[in-house]
């Protein structure tokens, strides 16, 4: 508090580094367009004007993995698609997070058969799981806020550790 008392009302705020970086990361987390099936439609509904996610800084859905931070796996991942998913995850630069949206991405939901990967965490490490078939846009927003809370809790050790 020392610096602020001395400078008075000069418009200076002091924070520590962790808080600043985490604040910056959560407030403009750009999702990568990875809508596969039905959950993609609810993701699109979450982006539309009724359940706006742009108030969380996410209005820009970048199709390119090089320019995005968050991969929302929305929909069922088949065995033919799994290598593509892994490759795109590898192409995303750090820091990156994965949100598994819907039952099919989290645990394959209704389908327990040969064609689907049983839960996308067999292919990429997941940070937040959102349940629902498909989850309501509000549930998706709840998942995003949970992810924001997780990111705000990250410290220097998490950033520098190899993932």
């Amino acid at each position, binding site marked *: 508090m020392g610096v602020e008392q001395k400078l008075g009302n000069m418009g200076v705020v002091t924070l520590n580094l962790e808080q600043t970086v985490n604040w910056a990361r959560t407030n403009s987390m750009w999702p990568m367009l990875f809508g596969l099936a039905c959950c993609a439609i609810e993701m699109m509904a979450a982006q539309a004007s009724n359940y706006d996610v742009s108030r969380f800084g996410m209005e820009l859905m970048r199709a390119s993995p090089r320019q995005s931070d968050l991969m929302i796996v929305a929909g069922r991942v088949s*065995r*033919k698609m799994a290598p593509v998913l*892994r490759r795109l995850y590898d192409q995303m630069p750090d820091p990156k997070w994965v949100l598994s949206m819907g039952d099919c991405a989290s*645990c*394959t939901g209704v389908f*327990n*058969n*040969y*064609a689907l990967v*049983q*839960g996308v*965490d*067999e*292919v*990429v*490490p997941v940070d937040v799981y959102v349940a629902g078939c498909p989850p309501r846009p509000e549930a998706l927003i709840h998942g995003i806020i949970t992810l924001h809370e997780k990111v705000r809790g990250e410290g220097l050790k998490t950033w520098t550790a*190899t*993932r």
Partner: protein
Amino acid sequence: MNESFEPVVNALTQRLGAEASEFRGEVTLMIAPEKIVDACRILRDEFGFEMLIAATGVDYWPETKPRFNVIYLIYSFTHNLNLNLHVPLDGNAPHLPTVEGIYPNANWYEREMWDMFGLRFDGHSDLRRILMPADWEGHPLRKDYPLGYEEVQFSFNYKEVDSKKPYAKD
């Protein structure tokens, strides 16, 4: 049976030895595999059945006579009639001629039948897998192919299932 079907059914039963049957108002003709191309040509050119709606297969394992039934659903726009053609096939190396020359959209349907059931189509221009990855082994929709069921993880067997699941690290 609707009267408008009579000439079609008569022509195919007399000229190609097809067997006609009816179930819930739908007319089905059973045709031998060698004659399917002629049957389709007669249907399209002489009777105006222009559209192939779909083509698929059924597996009757463990019954082996016949093991497979290939089903063609054909529609006539001019007369507004639906017709089913069934082609019985047996289990060892099942193959039949392609109708791609008559109904071009049979291309993908036959590829799907090759992929899912292992039925070869002689003369097909591009017979390779369509829905499964290119290096997949086996034909999933056959009855002797397992479902690929994974044990459901409840709380009593949570740890056992968890240890067998391949989680991705990084």
